[in-house]
């Protein structure tokens, strides 16, 4: 790891005029030949992609030893634009591929990019099991509350009452709180952010990469073409701004303030989900319990609690 970290704190002592990018040079990690990308105008996934590149460019000189695994869907397509070892797998299964890859090559940093349909619906089983095993990979789930690529069908994250192409009368099914699900399944790092806050996402993503064990970052990002249009939430900027309130702290503060009268908004109300780092704990990783590579992780969390009941101690 150490060798691959880049110190971005460049001291430019040269007196010659220079050009410095405001946010570092993450675009060097982009597969320029593939651009422009295939995402719709205003799709938040692009913002997440840029933020991911930004974090990766801070940490790695190149992504030779970084494998990014994705499933199927709009979210998963973003990995194709990252100049890393990228694996675009089958619908719902990226975590399976990633688990195998990580066990085969514990020295690789394995990142999974998935979507809400991919990761929670068809791949829900793999998600909870990856969390249970605490395999040392980082999973980024882009939650756009809908199936974007297939044309805007209801997903398990579509909130009750929301309109989609398969819920023309409003969604009749309750939705998952994905982060809670993953946390309950045993993930040792769970965070949620939104595409309106790429920097917060970056911070969480960086912490997730540092974390040893299954780390999960959910990003609320909006589908402009379907979720936005069908629910009359507007286009890119509108949806982006509508994420502004994704914070239970803010929600609680607003609820405590006096109102002139009851606020009645005929729009479907977007639920306010907790954001930020939601959970962090330490336990042995799958690599350790399986004794992969001599049971020694290439990385370590500080102050790790190694339970006496861990398998290798038996």
């Amino acid at each position: 790891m150490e060798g691959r970290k880049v110190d971005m704190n460049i001291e430019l002592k040269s007196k010659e005029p220079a050009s410095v990018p405001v946010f570092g040079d993450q675009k060097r990690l982009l597969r320029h030949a593939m651009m422009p990308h295939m995402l719709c105008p205003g799709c938040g996934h692009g913002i997440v992609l840029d933020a991911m590149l930004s974090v990766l460019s801070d940490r790695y000189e190149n992504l030779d030893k970084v494998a990014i695994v994705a499933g199927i869907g709009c979210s998963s397509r973003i990995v194709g634009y990252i100049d890393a070892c990228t694996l675009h797998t089958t619908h719902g299964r990226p975590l399976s591929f990633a688990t195998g890859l990580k066990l085969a090559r514990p020295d690789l940093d394995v990142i999974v990019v998935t979507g809400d349909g991919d990761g929670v619906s068809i791949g829900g089983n793999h998600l909870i099991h990856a969390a249970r095993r605490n395999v040392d990979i980082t999973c980024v789930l882009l939650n756009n509350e809908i199936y974007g690529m297939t044309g805007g069908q209801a997903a398990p994250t579509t909130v009750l009452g929301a309109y989609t192409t398969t819920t023309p009368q409003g969604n009749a099914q309750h939705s998952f709180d994905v982060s809670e699900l993953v946390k309950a399944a045993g993930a040792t790092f769970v965070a949620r952010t939104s595409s309106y806050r790429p920097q917060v996402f970056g911070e969480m993503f960086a912490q997730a990469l540092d974390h040893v064990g299954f780390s999960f970052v959910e990003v609320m990002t909006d589908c402009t073409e379907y979720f936005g249009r069908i629910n009359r939430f507007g286009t890119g900027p509108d949806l982006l701004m509508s994420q502004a309130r994704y914070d239970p702290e803010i929600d609680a503060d607003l609820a405590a303030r006096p109102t002139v009268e009851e606020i009645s908004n005929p729009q479907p109300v977007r639920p306010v989900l907790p954001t930020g780092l939601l959970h962090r704990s330490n336990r042995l990783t799958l690599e350790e319990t399986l004794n992969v590579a001599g049971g020694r992780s290439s990385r370590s969390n500080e102050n790790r609690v190694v339970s006496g009941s861990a398998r290798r101690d038996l």
Partner: protein
Amino acid sequence: MSEEINQAVESEAERSSEKNGNGASVVRLDTLEVKQAPPKSSQKVAKTRVDLLSGNESIALAALHSGVGMAVGYPGTPSTETLEYLAKISSDAEVYVDWSTNEKVALDVAVGGSLAGDRILVTTKHVGLNVAMDSLMTSPFIGVNGGVVILNADDPGMHSSQNEQDNRYIARFAGVPMFEPADSQEAYEFTRAAFELSETWDTPVIVRTTTRVSHSRSRVIPMPAQARREGEFQRNPHKYVMLPGNAKARHVAHLDRLSRLETWAEGIPFNREEIRSNKIGVVTSSISYEYVRDILPDASVFKLGVTFPLPKERLRSFAGKVEKLLVVEELDPFLEEALAVFGVSAEGKKFFPRFGELSPSLVREGFEKAGILEAVKEEVSSSGTVPSVPPRFPLLCAGCSHATPFFILKELDAVVTGDIGCYTLGATEPLASMDTCLSMGSSIGMAVGLAKAGSTAGRPVVAVLGDSTFLHAGIPPLIDAVHREANLTVVILDNGTTAMTGGQPHPATAQNIRGEKAPKVDIPAICSAAGVSMVNIVDPYDVGATRMALLNAMNKDGVSVVITARSCVESPVKSRGRIYYTDSKACDGCQLCMNLGCPAIGWDLSILEMPRRVRIDPGLCSGCTVCAQICPQGAILPVGVGGTEPLSESGEPSIGSGKGGRDLA
């Protein structure tokens, strides 16, 4: 001449004799009980009586002492405190006080109440009287039963007004007598006299103040109070129904009264000739009198207490007693012109400005220009170098619920017709999203014009007005807009109060002026009833929802209404939530939050590195959360979140937690 007015003369004498007394005999003034002083002083702090009243308070007190039965008006700086103070010092049984929907309503209520026998006080600011002009012009025709006194507060210098107009002309135009007090004591006395005069002469009477008189405090020695006037309505259609036939007769009566009033004006004590020297004579009134007395203590002064009608003969006589006659008056040359008509030559506006407020310094300068005073090259300040200081513009309060709609309207590039209220400040940087502001309620009408005629180059048209303003004058133009199928959006900024004037209730608040429960008018229902098909209510503290509501409304054809509903952060009660701070490590100085124009948000001057970081003043933050919502960096956090010490020793959150922020776990 009535007995009461003679009384007033006597009280004038009383006043000068008591001038330096402690006012022990004062009735019904603020009595403030003083708590035990802290341990340091063993001496008990004595009770003290205070008799320092503002002009507005003096008028309220005078009304109460005149046995007024009803007081109505619409809030407007600088007249507002009058009714508030009257409500404070009286009981409901004594005086029925409340705010009217607008000034015309107030005057109509007043005339009706007068016919029912009560004495009535009406309060308004100068532009408010414009609203009531229709009724004002005809009211002297009908006359009064109980006395009707209209407090008209002018605002020279436009401290809080959209124009500068000299309402002395309105008195002349309407043929209504006008008193002009110069300080609180006069305000009290003239108001008492005005009620008497109103009944004596069967006409409403205007008491005109200016900001300086309304808002200055000085001592007031009151006169004995009268009981509430008793009377009842008597049918008198010839006098009360202004059909042309009746009105013709009443106009003649009105003109007759005016000519008799002119005679009356010659003898009244409110106009005072002060002869001190035969060189210089100054005709003046109101606050200008006080300046003249300070600057030219030895000059002869004709002090006018009633500026309409004017005492022609006495003025001519005064002019004859001095070598040089000057007129010192604020705003228009009302007195100067009148003197010219009377054939008296006097100079005024040649030396004194016709706009803005006079001040002792301006009066001195005027006299210097007139050659009466020698210009003294006096060093004004001790050091001689008074630092130049940039102006401090008025701005929306920290946490004002009006900021978000303007922030969004600017981003959406709408043509915004504004209105009169706090939200007029949406026109100032950095919100700077208001394109027009004309008069109360004019936003919607102007929007109709913009939408129906000419072109806005494709920009959507949005009218923005407050809840109180909407009820005041926004409903008729809304109806007009619906009927014309104008393509516009009306944003009603509902903060549940008349905030700009200090938080007065209005018909859509569930309170009256005394804080008692009152029926609440339903603004959304009014809009729907007017035929608006899209009426959405949103929380302006929810940036995303507000944006979406505005966008949806703007995208809709025809008239749409968005009501942003959130209580005023300052009045009638201060509302404060958990405050927010900036995590300096996360802030990248993008300045998006600064676009809200919140006074609590500024550069953090403790960090000199670039880019600058934003700091939230904990003393000003009201915890509205709006900046935290729009911060794309998530750098604005509630105090206590992010592992930060809630408050450091210096009373504010320490900068940066050093623990990686946002950890809720």
